[in-house]
C-alpha cells in the first residue's frame, strides 16, 4: 500500500450508513484513472490508555462504551477476560444467558446492517436519490419491509433487554464469574412468544434476497471479490460458533492453516502493521506476512471457516451458500449480506433452543471471587468478527495494561483492497457521478464496519512498521 503524496484525489467524506468515522481517498494517476483507494479511519479515543488504573471489574462497563451497536460483544469478551482473572468459569445458567444475550446482539446488529444501513442501496438502488436513500426513505417507499426490519431489530434488542435490563450498554447485569440476576419465566415467555415472528421474518427476507441475487451479478463480481484467508471461532467439530470454541484460520481454498485451540495465544498467529494515514491498524496472518497475509472476519468469514451449523434451517442454507464458492469458500465481499441473513437464522434457532431449555430459568447465576490470576484474555465472535480483550492487573486488581483487538480491525487490509477494486471498476474521474462513489461506500457497508470499536484501542501486538518514501519505496522497517 502506498503513501498518498500530492496525487490528484477524490475524497468521500464522511462514509455514511456505517458505524463510525471513515473517509475514502481515491488516488488518481495523471490520466485520471484510479491508482488506489485508501480507507481512512479518522477518530480515536484511546481506551487502552485511559483504562489503566481502573479496577478490573469496571472493564465491562467501560469497554461496553466502545460501541453502541455491539456493546454486548464487548461485555462478553470483557467478562470472559475478567473470568480468567478471577480464575472461575461461570455457572451453567449464567453461560447460557450470556450466550442467549449474544444471540440477541447478533440478530439486532445484523438486522440493523441489512435493513437500516444496506437495504437502501439494495432495495432503493445504488444510484437512487441520496436524499431518500436511507431508513426514512425505505419507510416511505417500502413500508412493509421497513417495518419487518424494525421489528426484527426490536426482537434482538428485547432479547438483550429482558436478560440484562437495558438494550444498550447493559453492563449492570454482567459480572466476573457470572451474572447478577436470573431470567424470570415471565420474560422468557415473552421472548418465546415473539420468536416465531422473528423466525418467519428472517426466512421471508432470506427468500426475497436469494431471489434478488440474480440482479446483483455485477456487484458480486466486482465488490471486493478477491481471495483471502478467513478467521473465525468454531465448535469442537468445526461448527459455526460465536461465544466459545477454537479460533481457526483457513486459506482461500478452504484448507485449515492455523488452529488456535487456546484463543489467548492469538499473538502467535496475528501481527499488526501501521500506516500513517489511518488510526486503524492492519492485522495480518503472520505466517504469510504483510500485506499478502490479509484475512477477513465476520459473517462471510465465519461461514467459510465453519463446516456446518448445528441448527437445521441454517445448516440447509449454509450448504446452499457454500455451493457458490470453490471448495465451499465464497470470496466476494458482496456475499456478506447473504451470510449475515444466514447467521441471523442460526441465531434465532439457537435462541429458541436456549429458551426451551429449562435450565435457562435457574437462579444460580452468580459467583463470588476476586483476583486470583494477574492476566486474562476473553475472545468472542462479535457480529463483525473476532473480538479479543486482554487485560493485565496488579495484585489489587487495578488494570496495568489493556489490549483490545477489534473485529473490524482484522478486515482493514481487505477494506483497502475492496475499495480499490470498486474504485478502479466504477469511478470515472472525468465523468464523476454520485452513484459511482456510492458504490465505493456500498462495498464498505457490505463488510459492516464498526469503527467506534476499531478506534478504541490499538493493540500492543507484534508490530511491523514500514517507512515508505514519496514513491512508495521501502526506506526502513522495524519488526517487533
Amino acid at each position, binding site marked *: 500500500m502506498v503513501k498518498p503524496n500530492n496525487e490528484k484525489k477524490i475524497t468521500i467524506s464522511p462514509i455514511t450508513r456505517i458505524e463510525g468515522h471513515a473517509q475514502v481517498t481515491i488516488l488518481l494517476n495523471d490520466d485520471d484513472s484510479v491508482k488506489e483507494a485508501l480507507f481512512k479511519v479518522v477518530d480515536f479515543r484511546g481506551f487502552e490508555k485511559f483504562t489503566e*488504573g*481502573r*479496577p478490573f*471489574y*469496571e472493564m465491562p*462497563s*467501560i469497554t461496553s*462504551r466502545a460501541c453502541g451497536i455491539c456493546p454486548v460483544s464487548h461485555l462478553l469478551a470483557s467478562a470472559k477476560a475478567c473470568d480468567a482473572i478471577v480464575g472461575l468459569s461461570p455457572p451453567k445458567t449464567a453461560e447460557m444467558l450470556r450466550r442467549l444475550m449474544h444471540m440477541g446482539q447478533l440478530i439486532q446488529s445484523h438486522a440493523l446492517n441489512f435493513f437500516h444501513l444496506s437495504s437502501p442501496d439494495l432495495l432503493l438502488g445504488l444510484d437512487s436519490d441520496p436524499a431518500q436513500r436511507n431508513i426514512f426513505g425505505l419507510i416511505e417507499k417500502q413500508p412493509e419491509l421497513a417495518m419487518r426490519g424494525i421489528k426484527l431489530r426490536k426482537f434482538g434488542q428485547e432479547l438483550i433487554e429482558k436478560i440484562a435490563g437495558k438494550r444498550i*450498554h447493559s*453492563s*449492570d447485569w454482567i*459480572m466476573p464469574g457470572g451474572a*447478577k440476576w436470573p431470567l424470570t419465566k415471565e420474560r422468557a415467555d415473552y421472548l418465546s412468544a415473539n420468536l416465531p415472528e422473528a423466525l418467519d421474518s428472517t426466512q421471508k427476507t432470506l427468500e426475497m434476497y436469494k431471489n434478488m441475487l440474480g440482479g446483483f451479478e455485477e456487484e458480486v463480481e466486482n465488490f471486493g471479490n478477491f481471495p483471502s484467508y478467513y478467521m473465525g471461532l468454531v465448535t469442537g467439530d468445526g461448527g459455526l460458533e460465536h461465544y466459545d470454541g477454537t479460533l481457526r484460520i483457513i486459506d482461500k481454498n478452504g484448507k485449515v492453516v492455523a488452529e488456535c485451540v487456546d484463543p489467548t495465544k492469538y499473538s502467535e498467529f496475528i501481527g499488526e502493521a501501521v500506516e500513517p494515514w489511518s488510526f486503524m491498524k492492519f492485522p495480518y496472518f503472520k505466517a504469510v506476512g504483510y500485506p499478502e497475509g490479509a484475512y477477513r472476519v465476520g459473517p462471510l468469514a465465519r461461514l467459510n471457516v465453519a463446516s456446518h451449523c448445528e441448527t437445521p434451517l441454517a445448516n440447509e442454507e449454509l450448504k446452499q451458500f457454500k455451493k457458490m464458492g470453490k471448495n465451499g469458500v465464497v470470496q466476494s465481499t458482496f456475499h456478506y449480506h447473504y451470510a449475515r441473513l444466514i447467521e441471523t437464522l442460526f441465531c434465532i434457532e439457537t435462541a429458541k433452543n436456549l429458551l426451551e431449555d429449562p435450565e435457562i430459568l435457574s437462579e444460580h447465576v452468580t459467583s*463470588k*471471587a*476476586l483476583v486470583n490470576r494477574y492476566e486474562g484474555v476473553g475472545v468472542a465472535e462479535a457480529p463483525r468478527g473476532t473480538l479479543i480483550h486482554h487485560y493485565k492487573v496488579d495484585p*489489587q*486488581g*487495578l488494570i496495568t495494561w489493556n489490549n483490545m483487538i477489534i473485529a473490524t480491525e482484522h478486515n482493514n487490509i481487505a477494506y483497502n483492497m475492496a475499495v480499490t477494486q470498486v474504485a478502479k471498476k466504477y469511478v470515472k474521474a472525468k465523468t464523476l457521478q454520485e452513484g459511482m462513489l456510492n458504490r465505493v461506500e456500498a462495498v464498505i457497508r457490505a463488510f459492516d464496519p464498526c469503527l467506534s470499536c476499531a478506534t478504541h484501542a490499538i493493540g500492543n501486538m507484534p508490530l511491523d512498521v514500514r517507512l515508505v518514501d514519496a514513491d512508495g519505496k521501502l526506506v526502513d522497517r522495524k519488526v517487533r
Partner: protein
Amino acid sequence: MSTNGVKLKIDGVEVAVPEGTTILKAAKDNGIIIPTLCNLEGLTAYGGCRLCLVEVSGTPKLFPACTTPVAPGMEIITASDKLKEYRKMVIQMLLAERTHICSACVANDHCELQAMANQLGVDHVMFERNWSKDDIDLSHDFLAIDRNRCILCTRCIRVCDQIEGVHTLDLKLRGKDTEVIMDLDERWANSCSCTSCRKCAKVCPVGAIYIEGEPIGHTKRKDIAEFILARRNRK
C-alpha cells in the same frame, strides 16, 4: 420544656415543634421533605453539602436546615425558584469537582448524587470539570475506596466514629485537596483500627466506598445508623 413549645411557619403553614428541633426535622415531621445529601438519620448533622439551604424571612442569608434549630416566629421557605437554582448549582459543583462518570460507576442506578441530579433536572454542568485522578485503594480484602467519586459528605467518617466507635476514617488536607483517609493516611489493608464492619460502605451515598464483588444495591443501607441506635437503646 413543653413538647411543642416553638411555633413557626414553614412554607406558609403554621407548625409547632419542641425547642431544639432542627428546621429539617420540623419540616419532615410536618410532611415537607427538604433535599439532603450529607445528612443521615442516627448521625450528627454536618451541614457540608449545602443542599438543604432554606430561606428565612427577614434576612437574605440562607440557612442549612440540618444544623439550624427553629426559633419562635420563624418564617421559612423550603422551595422557591432561587433555592432550586442554588440546589442545582450545588449538584453541578459536586459533579465538576472530581471525576464522576455514572455510566462506568459501580453505583450506577443506586447513587444518591445521580438521583438528586435527576430529581432536580440537572441536565448538564455549567462548570468546567476537574477530571481528578485521585488514589483508588483496593488493598483491603473487600472494602474499596475510589476517591474520585467522593463528595466529602463525611457520612463514612461519622458512622465509623459514632456508631462503630473506632474512628478509622477522617479527612486530610483542605479545600479541593481534601481526602478521606484511614488512620494516619495508611493503605486500608494496613489500618490497625478498622474492624471491617462495612458500615462506611453501607452509608456512602455514591460509589466511593463499596464492597468488591457485591452488587451495590445489596450493600447500601441508609437506615443502618438509626437501626443500630434503636436496637442499642431498646428496653
